[in-house]
């Protein structure tokens, strides 16, 4: 990561909240006075397909999509999707992966298709920095499964140069008022996880 330039890739499955996560990152970067571009595919993706969102931050951004091998940070809402995206990463980038498995019908009904339960291990062979997060369990503990994205963002925030204050402000502007409090808590939980990672 250099000169305040960051490429962040967020991946998951349709309906998991990938797009809100990238909205929040963009908001924080704009507040920091940086140029931002972000790109994603809508449409068919809503129906349980792969969803990915590219966020690029810097003094001046050209391409709205991240070049292969250039992502600094990966957030994955699902472990196999994390593995699918691994080659987009810089070797020294950090991957934050929810340990959830979503196995599509096509895998259960097709003989030669298998699901990579060892996704995290395989990612670790390619990247130095892979962080598995039990985001589903934490979200359930906090009482709302939809908090997964804020938890993952909290973890990620430990690897970007923006202070907690700006993240909280972004959450307050982008999240519905009645969910702000719980999202702030979820974010903090994630941020603490990141702090622990950095120490150990």
């Amino acid at each position: 990561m250099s000169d305040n330039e960051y490429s962040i890739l967020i991946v998951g499955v349709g309906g998991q909240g990938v797009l809100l996560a990238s909205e929040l990152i963009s908001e924080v970067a704009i507040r920091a006075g940086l140029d931002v571009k972000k790109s994603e595919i809508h449409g068919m993706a809503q129906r349980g397909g792969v969803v990915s969102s590219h966020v690029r931050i810097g003094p001046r951004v050209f391409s709205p999509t991240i070049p292969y091998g250039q992502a600094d940070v990966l957030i994955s809402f699902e472990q196999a999707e994390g593995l699918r995206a691994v080659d987009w990463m810089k070797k020294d980038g950090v991957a934050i992966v929810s340990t959830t498995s979503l196995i599509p019908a096509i895998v259960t009904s097709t003989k030669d298709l298998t699901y990579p339960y060892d996704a995290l291990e395989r990612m670790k062979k390619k990247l130095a920095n892979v962080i598995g997060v039990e985001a589903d369990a934490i979200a359930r503990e906090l009482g709302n499964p939809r908090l997964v994205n804020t938890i993952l963002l909290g973890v990620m925030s430990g690897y970007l140069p923006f202070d907690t204050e700006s993240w909280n402000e972004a959450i307050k502007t982008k999240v519905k008022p009645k969910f702000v409090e719980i999202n702030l808590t979820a974010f903090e939980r994630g941020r603490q996880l990141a702090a622990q990672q950095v120490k150990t």
Partner: protein
Amino acid sequence: MKELMSGNEAVARGAFEADVKLASAYPGTPSTEILETIAAKYRSVYSQWSPNEKVAYEVGIGASLGGARAMVAMKHVGLNVAADPFMTHSYTGVGGGFVLVCADDPEMHSSQNEQDNRHYAKFAQVPLLEPSDSQEAKTMLLAAYEISEEFDTPVLLRLTTRISHAKGIVEINDPIKTEQTKFTKDAAKYVMIPAYARGRHKVVRERLKKLQEFAEQSPFNVIENNGSKIGIITGGIAYQYTKEVAPGLDYLKLGMSFPLPMKMIAEFVKSHDKAIVVEELEPFYEDQILAAGIKVEGKKFFGHRGEYSPYRVAQGLKKAGVLKEIAIAEVPPEEQMFPRPPVLCPGCPHRGVFMALKKLKVTVTGDIGCYTLGTLPPLKALDTCICMGASIGTAIGMERVDGSRKGAVAVIGDSTFMHSGITGLLDACYNKSNVTVAILDNRATAMTGGQEHPGTGRTLMGGEAGQVDIPTLCRALGVKRIREVDAYNYDQCIKTIKEEMAADEPSVVITSRPCVLMPKRIMDEPYVVDLEACNGCSACFRISCPAIAAAEETNEHGHPKAIIDESLCTGCTLCAQICPEECIVLKSQFVKA
């Protein structure tokens, strides 16, 4: 003030700032959010969904002739439908400014082809603007209205998926005020009978010459000098990718790209050792530049198909000998993985019909919508899909040449039926075809996000609307056999379709269940699998329901038994109907047992 906006949102904002009075469209990815944003945020602009792009375009013509600024939006293939008015609209010219916003879909993320609509500007001889980010999308839309009014022409603003759906920072301005005039009768300009059209074609040619001069001066065609020997000629999103990987080269960036600023291009090429054209999809610039006798190269390095990326542009520049080292990774992602295609939702009413059609082993001519997702394994229920509305005509042709005169069953969604299926059905009645047409009436344009249409009873702006009654409409076309079926009743679907296929006249089968997502999320009591009774036969896996997964428990052959994710199951009952062991039961009943 600055805001992060997608290209589509920026166009919507631009329509508001340009004082557009009317915007009409038919939804289609990646263009849909333009009108949705206008309807949600800029209520001073009247906005509406039309039944199809041709009508949307004509509504726009009317508003423009009435003296108001008008905007029409559609996806690339939408312009095929609207091509008829578009081509002649070039002749008549406009009243108030008229801009057609068209979004191409390189890579076919959500489309049936990746045609390059820049050709349409040249075909109709109207000016073409190509933004390369959200800010330009808004700036160019505003400029397009001025061009339209100054040169008396419709203007094509061409977006692509990565412009429409990528977000960037946009400067917000106050709206301007325009003077709305009245329609002035002028038959020689507006009535395109041959005698008048000949005169107008001359006007079009003269206008084109003036536009050529104008393009040479356009602020959207700019040279960026960095002192390199190689010059890049590019436009649209390809500009961003090229800047990403080779920021130090000289650029001629084309923003107004039809007619091309050929003098500017000639000078740029002359002042460089070598000029390379980087453009996504077709060699639209390249062919014209070569035809003008100017030497450039391009397509042979970058290719014609699919969308570009920084990686692809870097590879091409390396092939061209321009880039020695590629700063970005040399290999595209390689991790081998199962596919995760989009699928029909749990509880989707289309599923029951496809299960029935599969069981009947008939040929199914398909159409475009969520139901096209029934093509992939394990459902594999559709045999053809060409364009919106094609299912019925295709079935008529098949039926006619089939010796048994049984041919195919046409499957078409409600929005698609309104869009362009009605005339197909009229053909079936008129020519006495025996086709069976299944209208999957889920009361939504689901594929593109649940937009209203003439069957839903509501308008884009949220008002009450006229509502067509599909059976009455079919009867008026001449269909005598009209059956309604419950899409959640597997046996009834099979029986009804079978009976209608046997009939000696055209027939229509209409399904009644609404989309489970829109406008209201439908969640009935979920079903569960009795794992003790389940023998792992996998019949329920083959209906491709995302709520049904493999259990850890297996049968004696090692095949997994099934479990149902209760948070996803809508209680549609289809899996329970086909389970040979009858071991899929209502949750409440299972607990009691």
